[in-house]
C-alpha cells in the first residue's frame, strides 16, 4: 500500500521521499509537527514548535509582529486583494477569512485530502499550502463548481450515485475528480482510482465515488474548471 500511495495526486516530483510526497512540498508540515515519538500531540503553530519556549518578552514581541503581506488571489472567479499573515494556510484563508467552509479539515497535515482545492486548475491540499503561495493565482473550491445555478455533471453524478455518505470528504473528492476530468475526460475506473488516491474516505464509499466519476465522464459536459 505504501508503494501505491506514492502515486498521490498531490505529488509533483517523482523522486521525493514518501513523507514529502503526501504533503506536496519539499519540506513537510507533518514531519515538522510530529517530530519525535515523544513530542506532544498539539497540532499547529509550527513556528513556535521548533524552538525552545522563549521568555515572555520575546514571545510577546513575536506575536505582536506576525509577518503579513498583501496578496491578490482569485477565488471562484472573484478577485480578492487582502493582507494575510505569512503563517496562514490557504485553507484558513478560505474558511476563516473568506467564509468558504466547503473545504474541510480532516487532518491538517496532508494525509486525507478533505481540504483539496484547485490552484490554477491543479489539485492541492489547502491545509499544506500557504495562503501567500496563492498570490496572483486562481483558486477553485467546491462552492465554485455550480455554473449559473446548475450543478456540474460531476456533482449530479455524485448525487445520483450516493457518492457522499457522511459527506465530509466529498468536497475534496469532487475537486480532485474535477481536475482529473479536465485533463482526461474519459478516465477508466482504474485511472480514477489512481488520480484520487490522495483523497481518503473513512465511510469507505470508494466504490460509489469511482462509479460516480466514471458516470460523469460519460456525459457531455463532464466536470471542468473555469
Amino acid at each position, binding site marked *: *500500500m505504501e508503494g501505491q500511495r506514492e502515486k498521490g495526486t498531490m505529488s509533483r516530483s517523482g523522486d521525493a521521499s514518501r513523507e514529502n510526497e503526501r504533503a506536496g512540498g519539499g519540506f513537510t508540515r507533518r514531519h515538522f509537527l510530529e517530530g519525535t515519538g515523544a513530542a506532544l500531540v498539539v497540532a499547529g*503553530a509550527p513556528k513556535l514548535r521548533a524552538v525552545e519556549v522563549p521568555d515572555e518578552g520575546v514571545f510577546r514581541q513575536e506575536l505582536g509582529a506576525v509577518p503579513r503581506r498583501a496578496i491578490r488571489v482569485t477565488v471562484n472567479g472573484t478577485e480578492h486583494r487582502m493582507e494575510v*499573515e505569512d503563517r496562514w494556510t490557504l485553507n484558513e484563508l478560505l474558511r476563516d477569512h473568506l467564509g468558504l467552509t466547503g473545504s474541510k479539515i480532516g*487532518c491538517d497535515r496532508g494525509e486525507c485530502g478533505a481540504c483539496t482545492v484547485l490552484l490554477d486548475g491543479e489539485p492541492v491540499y489547502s491545509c499544506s499550502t500557504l495562503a501567500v503561495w496563492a498570490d496572483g493565482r486562481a483558486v477553485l473550491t467546491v462552492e465554485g463548481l455550480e455554473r449559473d445555478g446548475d450543478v456540474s455533471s460531476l456533482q449530479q453524478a455524485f448525487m445520483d450515485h450516493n457518492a457522499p455518505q457522511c459527506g465530509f470528504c466529498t468536497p475534496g473528492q469532487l475537486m480532485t475528480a474535477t481536475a482529473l476530468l479536465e485533463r482526461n475526460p474519459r478516465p477508466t475506473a482504474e485511472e480514477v482510482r489512481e488520480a484520487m488516491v490522495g483523497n481518503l474516505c473513512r465511510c*469507505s464509499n470508494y466504490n460509489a465515488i469511482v462509479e460516480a466519476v466514471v458516470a460523469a465522464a460519460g456525459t457531455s459536459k463532464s466536470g471542468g474548471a473555469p
Partner: protein
Amino acid sequence: MSRQQATGPVRPMNTVGHNVPRIDAYERVTGRATYTRDVRLPGMLYARVLRSPHPHARIRGIDVSRAEALPGVRAIITHETHQVVYGSGSIAGGRQYNDAAKDITKHRRYMFDNPVRFVGQPVAAVAAVNRHLAEAALELIEIAYEELPFVLDPEEALEPGAPPIWPEGNLALDYQNQPRPTGGRAGDPEAGFQAADQVFEDRYTTAFVQDAQMEPRCALAHWDGDKLTLYTPTQGISNCRHDNARDLGLDVHQVQVICKYMGGGFGDKNGSYYFDLIAAMLAKEADAPVLLELSRKDDWLGTHGRWHTVQDFKVGVKQDGTVTAIQLHAYSGMGPYLRRSGGISGTDAYACRNVERVIYPVHTNRMVSGNFRAPSDPQGYFAIQSMMDDIAYKLGMDPVDFALKNMRRPTEEDPFTSYTLEECIERGVELFDWERRRRPEPGSEPGPIKRGAGMAFMMFRSGVGPSSAIVRVDSEERYTLFVGVTDIGPGAKTTMALIAAEELDVQLSQVEVVWGDTDRCPYSVGESGSRTTTMTGYAVVEAARDLKTQIAERGMPQGDDVLIASATPTPSTEGRRRMVFGAHFVEVEADVLLGHVRVTKYVAVHESGRILNPLPAKDQIRGAVLQGVGQALHEDLLYDARNGQPLTAGYYGARHLTHLDAPEIEVTFIETDDGYGPYGAKTVGEAGIILAPAAVANAIFNAIGHRMKDLPITREKVLGTIV
C-alpha cells in the same frame, strides 16, 4: 403491534423500496452542508487542549502564568481549576451512562484527571481570540510530571506486580464494582469436550482500530444566562444532552444540543464527550462562545477505537464435524477507563450450546477503547470463524458444509422472527462460484502468487424499541417531520422522510425533516446499534397513521391551522429473536515473495428485512466491508514498549485504505418482511463490517496454506510464512 407477523416475501410499495437519492444530496455536493466546525458565532473564541505526553504520570504542578499573560488568551482551565466528572468516559460494566452509573462507578473519569493514564489525555485547555494564539498559549503552560510505571499489554497488566492503574487493580470493574471477567457458561462444556472425537486449541489476536471518522471531533459551546447551547457532532442528541446535563449539574432543559451535519460516526458517539465539557467550561470562564477543535492527532489518541483482543479457543468436534463444545478465554484491552463492555461475539452463531466464555476487560496505559461499528463482532467473528475454518480443513471438510452443519438455527425454545441464514450462504456459494474458486488443498497453487477463497457467516441482532416522532401538516399540504436523529452518513433524514411519505401516501418532496436539535425534536434512540430505521422509523409510521386518522376525521387544516400527531411506540417481538443474517465470500491473491495480499472478488449476501432505500443500503454494506478489509489487512496502533509512546496515529501511520486499495464489493440483499419494524425493515449499518476480517483471513489461508492468526495480516506476516 397490529402488524401481520408472518415472514413472507416483500410486497411492493410506492416510495419505500426504490433507489432514492438523499433529500440533502445537493447540500452534500455543493459545500452547503454545515458541519459543526463550519458554525460561526459572534465573538467566538478558539480553543485547544494540552495533552499528556506520558502514558502514566502524576501531575506535580501546573504553571499557567506565562500563558495567561499572552494578549488574546481569554481562559485557561486545568484539573486544579475545574473538577468536572466526565461520566460517560468511564462506566462500571461499560453500559450506557445514566444516573445509577454515575453513582456506582468507582473508576470515575474527570474532564482533566490527575494522574494521567494515557498519552493524549487532556491536562489543560485554552481559549483565545484565534487558534494560533491558543496554540501558542499551550506552549507556555508548564507542567511538572512525576512519571509512573506503565503497562501496555493486557495479559501483563493482570500479572502480579504489574503497575496498578487503579487501586483495585487492572481488571475492569463490573456493574457491581467487582473486578470480574464477563462471559458466562451454557450447557455442559466439560461433557461436550468428553463427547468430542478431537479437541482443537488455538490463540487468535486482533488489533486496536480507531473509528477515525473524517471529521475531527469538535464542540462549540455558548451560554445564554444559565442555558448552555452545545453544537457537537454526536450520534445521539438526546443522550448527549442528558450526559452533559448530568456532569455539569444542570437541569436537562438547560442544555440544548445541536448536531449539524456530521463527518462520520462509526460508534460510541451516542452520548457526551469530554470536549463538550471543556468547551462549556471555557465558554463559561471566558463569557464568550468557544469552538474547541481537536487536531487529527488529538482525535486519534484522545477519543477511542475498537478494543484489541487476545482470544484462546478450545473447540471439541465429532469426526463428522459436529461441534460439541466451545471454550473461549480472552483479554480485551480497554485502556485506562472502561468506556464500553469489551465483549467478544461470535459463539452465538453456532448451534453448539455447550459454551464457556471468560473475557477479561483489562486496563492498560494505551488509549481508551470503545465502540466501533458492531463493537464486539468483527474481532470475535475473525477468531471463531478462523478457528472453525481451520478445523473444517483439518477434518477434510468444505467450510461451507461445516457451516451448514454447525450454524445456529431456530428451535421451538428459541424462535426467530425470520431466518434466512441458509439462504444467504447458498446464494453466496452460487454467486461467488465457490466450488471453482476454492482450493480443496490450501496453498496448492504453484508459483509465488497464490489465489484462494474463504467464507464466513453471521447473525446480528436487529432490535425494536421505543423512540418518538412528531408530524405536522399545514393547509398547503406541507408535511413537517420532527425526529431527533442526526445524519452521520447512512442517510437517516432521507429514510425518515421516505417512511413518512409512504405512510401518508404523499410525494417525498412534500415532506420536510426537522432533525438534530434537542429543543426542536422529540426523543430518538440515536444512531447507534443501527436502530434509527427500526425504532425511530417505526415511530414515524405510527405518528403518520395518527395524522392520517385526524385528517380523515377533521379534514385538511385550513388557513393558518395545522394538525399535529406524535407517537412513542414501544414495540416488542414477544420473546422472538429478531436477527439479520449474512454470508461473505472472498477471493484473494497473495504474493508470498512480496507479502502483498489483494482482494480479487468479494460477494456479500445479506438479509436485513425489507430494504427501504437500496441505493444507500448497498453502500452501507460496501463501505462497512471495506472498513473490515482495512481491519483485516492494514489498521493497527503500535506502541513503543520502551516508553509507552503511540507510533502510528493517523491515517498514514495506520495505513488506511485508499481508492487504490479498495476492491469492488458485490452486494446482494435477500428481502423478507417479518412484520416488525417499519414495513419489515431491519438493521443494516453495522452488519456489513462483521465478516470481512474472518472471510479475508480464511481466503488467505486457502491461498497460501498458512493460518494467519493475528490481525492485521500485514505484509511482513505473510512474508514470515515462507521463512
